[in-house]
């Protein structure tokens, strides 16, 4: 039984209009398809098959890196890449065999590489990176037999001094899948070269520049006939470092066969003149795409050559830390210039016996002498009276337990033990004995050489720590200064002038008559402190921190030798050599 519809007439009218509109739109689509497929079909077919238009990406040259005097450290050189454009190949097996005879890669490997790649068939697939000149010539000569093979010149990163300052400079490599996702920026594509470590990573945005590209018309042999469109790549900006090439090289030679690091900086600006880390690696092997055997070797080396020890390594500071204990005790009024403490060689505290490194004892000592001779008993006594809470307050003032903010990625923060920290991490309460260990820089305390370096910087400037940094200037490819990095205060430590004076005196006496005598230089007033840190990894770590000249310091230095022995014996002479080099003192 059919009922009549109640749809109003005007709506039916409109529906008819809508049908007409739909018919018109569909007619336009049909006509366009007719035009595209039937009339222009042959032309498009030709374009697709002959592929007369080819898009090529032109990479931007990465910014160069200079030392503070403008000496070139890192640049780019042209490298020729042999690639195959899948869409232009007629017979892949034959081509692979022919190409194999020239470049020496097996035909199976070549054809497999091409087959495995299934993005854009007009995009060249890389077969051989950094091809040698004689092979390039042969490929050029036999071009008509090798249809589909293309040679592309790409800028390649070149670290002029190989393993020189490798941890600071870092290295570059192809962007990986995870990074592509993380950035989710259409500017990045697979195969792009980006900074992976060190300054290359930290300043990647500045160094990288912007890709360009061109669309060219090619004939059946793949020869370019005309450039249809060209977008010039924008080169990356250059970095001028605070590093002094010669001082850095000198330091690297001093640590040639050792494990450890040297930090040299200007305390009045935070500029780092040398940041030595040994053992090192050659970043050039990353630039060509590191082979898996090289990677295996570097990443499993027991000496951790890839680790930037001064920034990422954490170590017990040992006696160097007595400087912090002394400052805290002076500021809190626990000791003063006059207070003397008797060292018999050992001391019973909180039911435990603690010994001095000098078994026969130092006798009666003032704080200046206690610093100079690095007497443990004196500092145990101070530590016991200070207590852990007050200790923590002073450590924070130096920025211990925080990043120093150096312009390098992946900085470590170390471990600053406190009562809460121990309960959380060790699940034990804080014992008085822990404070006593801490007062000579042992126990749970772990610091990076850079954090240790900030201690000496604070004393050299009498209270101001400037943010440590490696880059002085950013300049554009045409030589204009884009940005100048100004000194910036990292921490202001508000210790009384008296305290600082006593500490400085102690550090000076350390060099003149104490544990640091091996760093004494006749022509230069050096102040410093040695440290010999026990650690679970074996032989003690050797430390030296210091500054010079005593009045109006120009530079601060930290020497750290991993399992290097005694601070006074091993680290102090290296500091002395560096200072002599910097102040140009010949002996």
């Amino acid at each position: 039984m059919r009922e009549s519809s109640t749809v109003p007439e005007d709506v039916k009218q409109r529906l008819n209009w809508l049908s007409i509109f739909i018919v018109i739109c569909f007619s336009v689509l049909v006509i366009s398809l007719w035009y595209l497929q039937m009339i222009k079909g042959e032309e498009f077919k030709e374009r697709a098959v002959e592929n007369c238009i080819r898009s090529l990406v032109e990479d931007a040259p990465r910014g160069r890196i200079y030392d503070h005097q403008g000496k070139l450290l890192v640049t780019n050189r042209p490298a020729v890449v042999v690639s195959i454009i899948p869409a232009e190949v007629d017979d892949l097996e034959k081509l692979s065999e022919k190409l194999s005879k020239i470049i020496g890669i097996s035909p199976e490997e070549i054809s497999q590489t091409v087959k495995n790649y299934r993005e854009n068939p007009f995009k060249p697939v890389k077969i051989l990176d950094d091809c040698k000149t004689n092979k390039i010539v042969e490929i050029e000569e036999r071009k008509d037999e090798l249809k589909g093979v293309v040679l592309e010149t790409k800028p390649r990163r070149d670290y002029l001094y190989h393993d020189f300052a490798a941890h600071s400079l870092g290295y570059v490599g192809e962007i990986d899948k995870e990074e592509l996702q993380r950035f989710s920026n259409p500017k990045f594509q697979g195969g792009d070269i980006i900074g992976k470590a060190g300054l290359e990573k930290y300043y990647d945005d500045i160094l990288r520049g912007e890709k360009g590209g061109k669309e060219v018309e090619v004939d059946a042999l793949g020869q370019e006939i005309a450039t249809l469109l060209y977008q010039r790549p924008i080169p990356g900006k250059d970095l001028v470092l605070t590093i002094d090439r010669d001082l850095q090289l000198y330091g690297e030679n001093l640590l040639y066969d050792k494990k450890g690091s040297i930090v040299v900086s200007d305390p009045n600006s935070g500029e780092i003149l040398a940041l030595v880390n040994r053992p090192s690696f050659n970043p050039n092997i990353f630039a060509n795409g590191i082979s898996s055997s090289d990677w295996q070797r570097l990443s499993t080396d027991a000496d951790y050559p890839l680790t930037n020890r001064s920034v990422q390594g954490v170590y017990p500071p040992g006696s160097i830390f007595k400087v912090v204990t002394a400052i805290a005790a002076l500021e809190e009024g626990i000791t003063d210039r006059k207070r003397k403490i008797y060292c018999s060689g050992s001391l019973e505290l909180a039911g435990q016996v603690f010994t001095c490194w000098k078994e026969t004892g130092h006798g009666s000592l003032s704080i200046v002498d206690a610093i100079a001779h690095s007497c443990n008993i004196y500092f145990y006594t101070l530590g016991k009276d200070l207590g852990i809470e007050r200790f923590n307050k002073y450590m924070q003032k130096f920025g211990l337990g925080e990043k120093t903010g150096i312009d390098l990625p992946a900085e470590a923060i170390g471990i600053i033990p406190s009562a809460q920290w121990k309960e959380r991490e060790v699940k034990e309460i804080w014992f008085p004995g822990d404070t006593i260990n801490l007062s000579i820089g042992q126990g749970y305390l772990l610091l990076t050489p850079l954090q240790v370096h900030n201690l000496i910087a604070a004393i050299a400037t009498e209270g101001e720590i400037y943010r440590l940094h490696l880059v002085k200037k950013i300049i554009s490819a045409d030589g204009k200064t884009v940005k100048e990095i100004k000194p910036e205060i990292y921490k202001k430590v508000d210790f009384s002038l008296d305290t600082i004076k006593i500490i400085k005196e102690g550090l000076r006496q350390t060099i003149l008559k104490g544990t640091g005598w091996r760093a004494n230089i006749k022509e230069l007033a050096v102040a410093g402190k040695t440290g010999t840190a026990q650690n679970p990894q074996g032989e003690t770590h050797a430390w030296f921190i210091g500054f010079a000249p005593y009045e109006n310091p120009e530079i601060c230095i930290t020497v750290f030798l991993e399992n290097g022995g005694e601070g006074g014996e091993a680290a102090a002479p290296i500091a002395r050599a560096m200072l002599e080099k910097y102040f140009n003192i010949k002996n």
Partner: protein
Amino acid sequence: MKERLDRLTENLDFTLLFAVVFICFYGLLVLYSSTRLAATGESDPYFFVKKQSLWALLGFILLTIIIFFDYHNLERYSKVIYFGAIILLIMVISTGRTTYGARRWLAIGPFDFQPSEFAKIALIAFLADFLSKNKPKLDNFFYYLLPFAYTGLLILLVFMQPDLGTSLVYLAILIIMLFVAGIKIKFLAFTFLAALSSIPVLWTFLKDYQKNRLILFLNPNLDPLGGGYNVIQSRIAIGSGGFLGNGIFSGLQSQLNFLPAQHTDFIFSVIGEELGFVGTILLLGLYAVILWRGIKIALEARDLLGSLLAAGAVAFLFFHIVVNIGMAMGMLPATGLPLPFLSYGGSFMISNLIVIGILLNVELHKTN
């Protein structure tokens, strides 16, 4: 029940149903061709086809369920549906999963779905109910603005994801439904002029990539390596298909994975290249059948509500078809709208079949 089934066999639009089933199989074949070699890390060449089939199956189940509900229930529930859609869209913006810089997805258990797809259906249902109840008052200009406000809220929420294409779909559904509902032409003309004059203002709200798409649409050769690339290559693919195409599974550009988004937004190019003019006309023919049946259902509906529901369904499918194919041929800007029943994507497939369910439902209830 017996009576219902009788009416089902008597009134069900089998022409429409067959066209839809046919086009779904057509879509799966083309999808298989374009994804069997895809570099997704999936070794199974049927990976995409299996997932899409599953969604289609789910869609047909929903379609069947919808047929059995009398659409007049909407008179009570249309507001609930509308506000449900609003809440889902707000959830997307605040908690949704982000891909390619846009939040469009909401996770339900192991499944991700796009509420903005289902909001299209919610909008059709809501507008059909609203317009059918208020038809006489729509001669009043201020009353006429109300549906714009309701739709505008949805558009705003989708625009914030940001998804330009989908907000255009909402707008198209609104305008076509208003037109069918018998709105005075001068109102629509006035709205059009007002919109035209506000383009410069709206321009400033567009994201850079959306501006780029519009600029590139006007001249794709500006950036053949980047955004314009898709359109140029899509045209080459369609054109090179010629009359009969290169044969299924043998499109030079599509088989070498050369066309970007070839199983989603640019699947029409694969048909063009592999099946040629014959294949594209066959597809257009099937769409024409579906739309023709849709209009017919709207004309023969029992009442205004049914008629408007059918018109909304037609508007939804029609806009997607024309914009997607126009985009593949480089005639319209690349707005990223998928092609009904063909583009890979679960939420879209399901919402397409729900819309067909609505059409069949209106057809089924045209008599008592």
